[in-house]
């Protein structure tokens, strides 16, 4: 055993083979992501309950969001997922410059997404749509303070999503110099691929947030 491992750089001593090491890494990552699904499902279920209770207020609240900004950010995030795939592809082939470029692209698109989000939050603050003592509603008079619930969920869900992106971007900043120094090889690049799973998961959360926060006001008729 010891001899076999001496010729296997990047293989931890407690694994029999690269395949077993990889399977263990990805199984652990997927169990973490299953936990992440449970974590976000609390927020989505909260949305579901209040949407059922106050359908009209949610449609009215949704119309205060600019769906064009949401759609543009969806495209930006999908592009960041693609550059993440590029980084993983580079790691598989042992091409360190491709990993670095992929990560830089992902950081760039992630940064654009968060920049747009800051602009959106600022605009909501100016219009007194941030829940709390500062909240004022001057829109459709047929809805009362329950529209504040929509904005609580808007900030809670997009805020938690943005926090995941900030954490992801922090991890990528640590990964960049490691990738440049050639830490990851075609035999063991599990960290890059595992991080890719996390980033794609965050993208999937937004895939659900976009229609259910930004688009519901378009399709829901103006009638009750």
């Amino acid at each position: 055993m010891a001899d076999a491992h001496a010729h296997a750089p990047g293989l931890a001593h407690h694994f029999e083979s690269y395949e077993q090491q990889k399977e263990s890494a990805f199984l652990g990552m997927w169990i973490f992501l299953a936990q992440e699904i449970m974590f976000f499902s609390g927020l989505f279920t909260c949305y579901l309950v209040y949407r059922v209770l106050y359908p009209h207020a949610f449609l009215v609240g949704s119309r205060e969001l600019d769906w064009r900004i949401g759609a543009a950010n969806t495209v930006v995030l999908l592009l960041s997922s693609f550059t993440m795939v590029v980084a993983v592809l580079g790691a598989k082939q042992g091409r360190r410059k491709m990993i670095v470029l992929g990560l830089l692209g992902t950081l760039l698109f992630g940064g654009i997404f968060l920049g747009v989000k800051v602009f959106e939050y600022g605009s909501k603050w100016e219009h007194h749509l941030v829940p709390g003592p500062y909240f004022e509603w001057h829109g459709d008079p047929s809805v009362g303070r329950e529209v504040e619930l929509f904005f609580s969920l808007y900030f809670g869900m997009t805020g938690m999503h943005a926090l995941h992106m900030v954490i992801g971007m922090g991890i990528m900043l640590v990964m960049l110099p490691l990738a440049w120094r050639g830490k990851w090889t075609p035999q063991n690049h599990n960290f890059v691929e595992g991080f890719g799973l996390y980033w794609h998961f965050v993208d999937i959360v937004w895939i659900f947030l976009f229609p259910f926060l930004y688009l519901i006001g378009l399709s829901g008729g103006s009638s009750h």
Partner: protein
Amino acid sequence: MSEHEHHSLWKPYGQVLVALLVLTVVTVVAANFHFGTPWSDLVALFIALSKAALVVAFFMHVKGSTRLIKFAVWTGVIGIAIFFALTLSDYATRVITYVDAPRM
């Protein structure tokens, strides 16, 4: 590695990206149709699930992964489905439905 091999590695990911962008346009277009409650939401949900499935299968390489990994993926998906189903079995079936409260 030859140019052809590089090309064939990139191509499927590019196709998935294009499909995801097309589905983003589709969901915006569909949102402008008045399908009524709850059909508009179900259409949006179906499109979002399709996009998520593409990301999971191709970007996250679950297609072609081992049965153990697929089992872990389905654990999360089935978990959230149970959570939603049990919640809706209560809130969506109450006889007294809430109307939006008057302005306070």
